[in-house]
């Protein structure tokens, strides 16, 4: 019965309805609120992004009892679970969605009232709040059967997922990734690989089936392809004017985070690349009168995307590249479908958050050259300590050693209570004036 309901609601009626919605919105004219005087119209692919994400959450609503369900951290080695047919949910993505829909505070307060400190990452608070209250803008989240946390992004996830494991009384797979200072030593890679191997029987037991090596290779290949396409799209920002801004990237990055290893994700990014190339050919810039080009460091400020895009766009500033969106593409060359576990171990040990602050500084400097940028905005994210640590020095060194103007902007990626409107405007405006003289 459950299975039939799933097929009907997700694969038939739901899919058709979402397709129809996409069809309609593809034909709709630019929304009236859109500032076409300063920004390019929204990407056509947006309708498809919406369809893909809605479908993903719709599937989640009916997945319980039909498919095994896993909740996973954004940097988690998801390919094994995909190959075993899990429905995979990323609480961080769901958190971001709550941020853009402006319900993150309400959910955070649920967690805070329960006793979780406001100093904890706002993704964790949003997610735990959703778990405790059952509230979510997507209707319903599927109860997980398995949890997978990988410490390659932070240590917060370790404690956060322990809370989830205790609440749901389910197994937690923990992949511990040693911090990388320069290059990861071989024993560290072997250590991660060993943990991946050990995770397989745990996941198999929950899924009640055994992993097919061929299928794993296939998923890894798809993961690599999608990441490569994403990387290509990022690099298109080298064009002048830049065809898309980081604000577009933030909106369209959801599939590469939560749907890696799926064929539709590859198709989606191939289509997006085509549209971006078409923009370049026609000389369309994300910001109409692009005067200056900037780098963005750290997570997006989800509840202020439009405000930032317009405030900066109005002043001819295009934010072209970011260390954050780059992180989901830059490791693509490391993925080797022929050696899935070995290469996964390597890929998942090297994310920017698992590396020293000197590496990030070097990366930012390189990106400034690569994309021919005029400066950098470093979002000091109150929630994300591993991303924000070292930013004061990084900023100073960008200015003093490389002559790159840089601004530290204090905010929080999901908690608007840590965002001071007037102060942010004052800083941004002063920074823009500084760039202009």
């Amino acid at each position, binding site marked *: 019965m459950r299975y039939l309901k799933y097929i009907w609601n997700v694969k038939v009626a739901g899919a058709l309805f979402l397709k129809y919605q996409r069809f309609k919105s593809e034909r709709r004219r630019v929304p009236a609120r859109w500032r076409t005087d300063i920004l390019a119209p929204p990407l056509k692919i947006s309708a498809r992004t919406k369809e893909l994400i809605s479908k993903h959450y719709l599937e989640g609503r009916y997945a319980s009892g039909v498919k095994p369900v896993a909740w996973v951290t954004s940097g988690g080695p998801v390919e094994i679970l995909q190959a075993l047919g899990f429905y995979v949910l990323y609480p961080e993505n769901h958190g971001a969605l709550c941020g853009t829909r402006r319900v993150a505070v309400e959910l955070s307060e649920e967690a805070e009232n329960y006793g979780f400190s406001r100093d904890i990452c706002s993704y964790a608070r949003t997610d735990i709040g959703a778990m405790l209250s059952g509230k979510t803008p997507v209707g319903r989240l599927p109860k997980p059967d398995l949890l997978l946390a990988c410490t390659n992004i932070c240590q917060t996830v370790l404690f956060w997922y322990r809370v989830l494991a205790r609440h749901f009384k389910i197994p937690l797979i923990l992949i511990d990734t040693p911090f990388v200072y320069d290059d990861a030593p071989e024993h560290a890679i072997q250590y991660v690989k060993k943990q991946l191997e050990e995770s397989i029987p745990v996941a198999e037991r929950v899924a009640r089936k055994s992993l097919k090596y061929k299928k794993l290779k296939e998923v890894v290949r798809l993961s690599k392809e999608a990441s490569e396409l994403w990387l290509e799209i990022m690099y298109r920002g080298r064009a002048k004017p830049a065809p898309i801004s980081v604000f577009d990237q933030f909106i369209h990055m959801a599939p590469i985070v939560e749907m890696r290893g799926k064929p539709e994700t590859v198709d989606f990014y191939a289509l997006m690349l085509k549209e971006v190339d078409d923009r370049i050919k026609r000389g369309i810039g994300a910001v109409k009168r692009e005067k200056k080009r900037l780098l963005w460091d750290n997570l997006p400020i989800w509840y202020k995307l439009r405000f930032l895009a317009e405030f900066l766009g109005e002043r001819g500033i295009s934010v072209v590249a970011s260390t954050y969106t780059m992180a989901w593409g830059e490791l693509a060359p490391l993925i080797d479908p022929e050696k899935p576990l070995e290469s996964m171990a390597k890929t998942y040990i090297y994310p920017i958050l698992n590396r020293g602050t000197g590496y990030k500084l070097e990366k930012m400097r390189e990106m400034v050259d690569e994309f021919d940028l005029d400066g950098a905005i470093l979002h000091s994210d109150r929630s994300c300590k591993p991303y924000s640590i070292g930013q004061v020095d990084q900023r100073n060194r960008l*200015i003093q050693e490389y002559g790159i103007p840089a601004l530290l902007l204090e905010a929080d990626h999901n908690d608007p209570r840590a965002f001071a409107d007037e102060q942010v405007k004052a800083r941004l405006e*002063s920074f823009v*004036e500084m760039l202009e003289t």
Partner: protein
Amino acid sequence: MIASIGIDVGSTTAKIVGVDLEGKFVWSYIEPADPRVEDQVQKFLNLIEKETGPIEGKPIVATGYGRNLVHQATKKVTEITCHARGVFKQLGHGGTLVDIGGQDSKVIIIGPNGEVVDFTMNDKCAAGTGRFLENTAGRLRVKLQDMGEVALASRDEVTISSTCTVFAESEIISMIAHGVKVEPILKGLHRALVKRIVAMIRSVGLVPPLMLSGGVVKNPAIRKMIEEETGEKVILPDHPQFMGAYGAALIGLKLVRN
């Protein structure tokens, strides 16, 4: 003859400055900020007109937190740019400018040609600003304008550990309850504020010489302690409270020339 007008609508005070064609500071006026910004600005403009002659057609550049409410303005520019412009014109060199205002403080690194090279502003709270002293002065029953002298006269100094304005207040209450004298508390308060400012200076890196502006410079203890803490001599421009408005007027002058 006034050639251009600058108006700085800050959080605690509003200022207006008129400059002549050479950019010389010729007229100024200051009073506490009125929440009805438009009325206050109109009053300022009437005043300058009455005292210096017609202003019609002359550029008016607005700066400060309230700049966007000044509908009479020809142009709106941030305090950072205006302060740098004003101070550079008066002193003729770059360096590090520290502006301590009523509710916001800033550190601006000015390049050799007067350009802004880097800047930082106080955090989201009022800890590193004049408001910190103002709030606690009330508690100690010392007049704001006497605070600096009283603090400097004290040999002893207590440590105020809280930089939060509200918490510092409760710390002081408890000290008084324990019989600590007012003078050393005052000195400690100044120290706490200055340390906060110096941390801001350090965060961008001090490029000498060190210059000071804003309403708080009238307080001698602040000046002296900044010198103590940084080991740099502090230079003051002629009208330290008017640097924002002065810079704004100078920017207006450029509009005249163009």
